């Protein structure tokens, strides 16, 4: 099974080969490195940009204005903040021109903690991204979804932000990407660049197929009856584990992988909460004006009389950064035991 870095690489290859992508660029995206996480190795249209995030986003917007397709990378989302006004413009251009200038572009960037990355390699961006109207924002939790969502992002006529949980880059999935060889070793020999001299290396791409994971469609990853847990990215996998663990204690947890932060799949979330009467929203961005709060607000407004307990948001502590020492990181980012305890408490709560 592919890991997420390989899945992204294969989706980008699919984009080059079948969807008209002509530029994949950013810092160290091209040869020889092929991306800080190797997600852009071996591709045909990659190139290295100057070390200038505003230039990267501006370039992508200009390319999009001509109607051509590109994928731009910001090496870590920690460094995307100085482009926020450009992201706003990318999101408002179609609107302010009354429908005249579409901005079909993809920006991908690794997000979140989990690699002991300290203050400037652990930021999250999902809550910020949810405040960029005009953008679509996706965040996969598996290589399979990363492949399908990135293909959907490239096809989409709007600006799409593709958030990559960086701690999952080397995690393998359980579902085969269409066209991917069954053997891990074989895939590796085909698409991973060798260590050392790569100047003569060329990838052998599998016969990859299209995979439609529509933007805006969540997925129930664990069906359950007593509580709904909505998450995405790295914490989705944590929530899946908790649901599996709690089953033996007779607690039935429904886990929803939101996959798209905007425009989000309310119908799936709503139907689930109507069934369970209880909801927890889990992510690792900071807790004040967190995206989970919007979902909890909406659940409260629309489903108040169907709820058996108060909706809860579990998110990162509202501190300026993720400290390097594990004690600091673990105290800032929602931990498994913390989520599990909260689930037990909410399940036990009665009106």
């Amino acid at each position, binding site marked *: 099974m592919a890991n997420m870095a390989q899945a992204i690489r294969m989706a980008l290859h699919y984009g080059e080969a079948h969807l008209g992508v002509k530029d994949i660029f950013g810092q160290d995206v091209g040869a020889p490195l092929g991306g800080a996480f190797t997600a852009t190795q071996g591709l045909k249209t990659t190139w290295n940009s100057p070390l200038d995030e505003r230039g990267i986003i501006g*370039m992508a917007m200009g390319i999009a204005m*001509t109607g051509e397709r590109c994928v731009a990378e910001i090496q870590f989302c920690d460094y995307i903040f100085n482009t926020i006004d450009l992201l706003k413009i990318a999101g408002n251009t179609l609107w*302010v021109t*009354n429908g005249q200038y579409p901005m079909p572009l993809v920006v991908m960037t690794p997000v979140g903690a989990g690699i002991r990355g300290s203050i400037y390699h652990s930021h999250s961006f999902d809550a910020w991204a949810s405040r960029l109207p005009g953008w679509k924002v996706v965040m996969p939790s598996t290589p399979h979804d990363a492949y399908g969502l990135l293909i959907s992002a490239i096809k989409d006529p709007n600006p799409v932000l593709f958030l990559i949980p960086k701690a999952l880059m080397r995690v393998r999935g359980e579902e085969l990407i269409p066209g991917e060889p069954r053997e891990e070793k074989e895939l590796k020999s085909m698409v991973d660049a060798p260590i050392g001299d790569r100047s003569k290396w060329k990838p052998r791409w599998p016969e990859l197929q299209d995979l439609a994971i529509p933007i805006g469609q969540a997925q129930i990853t664990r069906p359950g009856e007593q509580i709904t847990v909505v998450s995405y990215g790295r914490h989705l996998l944590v929530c899946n584990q908790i649901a599996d663990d709690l089953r033996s204690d007779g607690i039935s947890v429904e886990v929803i992988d939101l996959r798209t932060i905007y425009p989000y799949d309310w119908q799936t979330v709503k139907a689930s909460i109507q069934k369970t009467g209880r909801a927890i929203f889990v992510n690792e961005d900071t807790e004040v004006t967190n995206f989970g709060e919007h979902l909890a607000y909406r659940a409260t407004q629309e489903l108040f009389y169907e709820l058996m307990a108060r909706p809860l948001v579990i998110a990162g502590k509202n501190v300026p950064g993720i400290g390097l020492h594990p004690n600091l990181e673990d105290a800032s980012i929602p931990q498994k035991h913390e989520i599990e305890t909260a689930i037990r408490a909410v399940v036990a709560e009665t009106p």
Partner: protein
Amino acid sequence: MQVQVSRAKNSKKISSRVNKKKSVGVKKATGSKKNLFSGLPKELLLHMHDLMVKSRVLEERLIKIYKAGDAFFWIGAPGEEAWGVPLGLLTKKGQGPKYDYLHLHYRGTPTLVAMGMPMIDSIRLIMNRSTDPSTGGRNFSNHYCYPQWNVAPVSSPIEVQYGMALGTAHVQKRHKSQALTVVTGGDAGTAEGDFATCLVWASRRGQELPMLITVQNNGWGISTAFEGQHGETEIADRARAFNIRSRVINGNDPVETYLALQEEMAAIRKTGKPSFIEARLSRLYGHSSASGANFVGGELDCVREFEKKLLTSGYLKESQAKKIWEAYEKEGFEAQQQVRTEPGPSSESIWDHVYADNENADWRKF
């Protein structure tokens, strides 16, 4: 009052800088008419004059519209006609990478007028009507957008167009179409990082971009004078540091501007490499309606100046000139009356075009 005094002082400094730096074609010429206008044909000169007057009358109409309470805000280009009209005339106009792209800021009226924008469309924009072809009533005056002419939407944040322009130039380079990308902006805005971004990305060795990077230096950023903000001798020097062809021109002179633009555009089309032009020019009605939008004394008026030269040379008669001004006055006035009858955008339309193909963007309906 104080602002006005220093404004005048500042403008004198600018024009003396221009004259010291380069002897201006018009000033040099003494003999024949041909010399007087550096060999530009009479029809072109009269055409430029006509468009400059049209643009000026339009801007003055926009100011009247603002002052009459028919608009919330005015910003525009009186004083930039000698720069903007030649630019509009020399642009290879059309849609897509085979044609020139224009990434303008909020002083683009003369360029759009020269490209063929009807006066009434600019009036629809300032009066925020649904008929406004640029934004449908969503944005300020002079925030033009004409995709059919590759005119990128003007956005208020200063200098962002310098980054976006790289993308259209990059695609043009790939198409080897000899088309180029023009970017314009003010002097104060060059302090923003996006200006440096533009110089860096456009000039990378072996990967140069076909771009005409320009600055319209009016000596001001709202109330802040050029002198207090710059250490470089001239803005054009910054481009020189990146091995970009670079020059300072008198942007108050349409003849010098036309010739300089022609030369630089030809060089870009031939080599695929960028050029830089710093045009020194006037700001005749202050920054915007926020500073009153009143005529400022002491700065050179390029339209009147050019007209004077055409009259002196005999290319233009007083009576003809009068007719041109009056005809555009009438057109502007009638357009305002017409636009007054046109509807504004509807309240429900706020959700239109958030996403392409009008896909629903209202979370209440997700």
